[in-house]
């Protein structure tokens, strides 16, 4: 037999008693929600201090308190809603078009060989195309009105939704489908009662990404002849190098993003309460 240098006591002495050591600690990070607020507070505090004392030049970053004031002014003047309402409308309509198209096409790709073979390469080719590169064309294709804004956001949310959807359909447990077939369920029943609900978790987590991308694309969309809108507001602030307003706009978008993410979480809890 083999031989291992014995580092512990060699004799089996029954008088040596010791409690079993605890070795199972760690690897279970817990979320302490106050920490998040604390970190934001620290960041903002440091920036405030830095910008007030001039350690951080006013060219580099605005004073957080000025940004806050800008947002408050924006709110008080009623301009906030004048900017927010059209943006949210564009977001909702554009994302709705893109996502519903995406789910339909994604489901078709998930179900039919012909759609899969024909469309997957096309989607793969469209994915890496930067939407802002196509802005000039969007004017010709969809006009400068709301149409082109919807189209841009729709295109941006379309591709990730398709990819998420057909991935989700692929991941639907095949035994559930076989079960449906074995009970003689019709094709349409299987799709509506088994495939789509089964793909829902994947589709919803795709939704999270699609909506984040939609928000990001708001700015690009509002490059095209938008008078009002958070994107337009940011662009104008940027072109005037007005950092307070730029950051005010960015903060609003960021809050919008967090709101949307919370909304998806709520939606998940509602639709996926069976999990």
């Amino acid at each position, binding site marked *: 037999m083999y031989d291992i240098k014995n580092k512990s006591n060699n004799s089996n002495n029954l008088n040596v008693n010791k409690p079993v050591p605890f070795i199972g600690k760690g690897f279970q990070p817990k979320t302490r929600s106050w920490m998040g607020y604390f970190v934001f507070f620290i960041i903002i505090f440091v920036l405030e201090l830095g910008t007030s004392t001039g350690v951080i030049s006013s060219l580099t970053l605005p004073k957080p308190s000025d940004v806050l004031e800008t947002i408050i002014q924006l709110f008080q003047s009623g301009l906030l809603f004048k900017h927010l309402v059209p943006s949210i409308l564009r977001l909702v309509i554009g994302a709705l078009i893109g996502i519903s198209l995406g789910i339909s096409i994604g489901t078709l790709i998930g179900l039919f060989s012909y759609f899969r073979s024909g469309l997957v390469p096309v989607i793969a080719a469209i994915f890496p195309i930067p939407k802002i590169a196509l802005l000039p064309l969007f004017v010709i294709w969809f006009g400068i009105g709301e149409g082109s804004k919807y189209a841009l956001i729709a295109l941006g949310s379309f591709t990730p939704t398709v990819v998420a959807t057909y991935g989700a359909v692929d991941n639907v447990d095949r035994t559930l489908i076989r079960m449906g077939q074995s009970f003689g369920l019709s094709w349409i029943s299987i799709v509506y009662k088994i495939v789509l609900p089964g793909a829902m978790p994947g589709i919803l987590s795709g939704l999270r990404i699609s909506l984040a991308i939609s928000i990001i694309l708001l700015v690009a969309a509002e*490059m095209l*002849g938008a008078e009002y809108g958070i994107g337009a507001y940011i662009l104008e602030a940027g072109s005037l190098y007005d950092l307070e307003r730029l950051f005010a706009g960015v903060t609003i978008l960021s809050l919008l993003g967090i709101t949307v993410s919370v909304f998806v979480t709520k939606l998940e809890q509602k639709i996926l309460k069976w999990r």
Partner: protein
Amino acid sequence: ASNKKIKVGALRFTSHSASFIAKERGYFKQAGLDVEFEFFQAAQPMAIAIASGDIDYAVTAISGGLISLAEKGAVKVIGGALSEEEGIDGQKFLVSDKAYKAGVRSPKDLNGKRYAVTQSGSSFHYMGSKMAAAENINLSFVPLQKVGAIIGALKSGQVDAWSIVPHIAKPLSRGGSIHIIGNVADYLPNYQITTVFTSSNNAKNERALTKNFLTGFSKGVDDYASTMIDKNKGDAGVNEMVDLIHKYVYTSRPREKAAPSIINGTMRLSDGASLNLASIKNQLEWFKSEGLVKKSITIDTLVDQSYVKIIS
């Protein structure tokens, strides 16, 4: 008057004041037009919007994009707007503080320096290039897309020079981090900066409509020039005009903060929308020589000379 509905593209700049005046004072209405403005963030989409038929008339600088669209048979220049004129404050050459400290005091000192443009083929590129040719120096052109990015780069000394309209140039130079070192007009006298343009279809088939538009527009120009440049109505007139323009420009700032910028922005708008064809030809030749547009384009592809007085 038939009250025909048309859409006019505009940027919220003082250089578009003529259109605002014509609308506010009812000159368009008198010409039988019901004008609705469509505002843009940048000039380039405006040109494309004319091509796509989303808007009918607009004012913008001659750019590579505009010429390309003209070459595709989509747009036509029909008149002039903003131009450099001797004796009136025009566009400025600016340098960063860093370059200034390094001894750049006039455009000829810019040899080998970095010159900011939004895009190759933009009017900034044209101005810089022409100046460099005249001074016989070399510039390296840095495309930064957005005016905001250019200002940031200039303030932090990452580019050395730029040219811009006076109402942006002057406030920038006040901070001390940017300096004005020359006038564009010294190199490009009578430079036709912006032009009035429309779709080829309007220019060819809607002659009456186009004439009516130019009539209304010209009246706006006349008002603007007589009040703001020639000061025929004194300070009261200027104030009244500022009020009018403030409805469209710098709307997010209070009147008293906006007024100096509006007044500073005053430049000559060509009388009766007349067009300086020589300047246009010069610009077109430059675009061709830089390889930015097709060599085959002639001045007639770009300009419909039948509408306004042509200066050459």
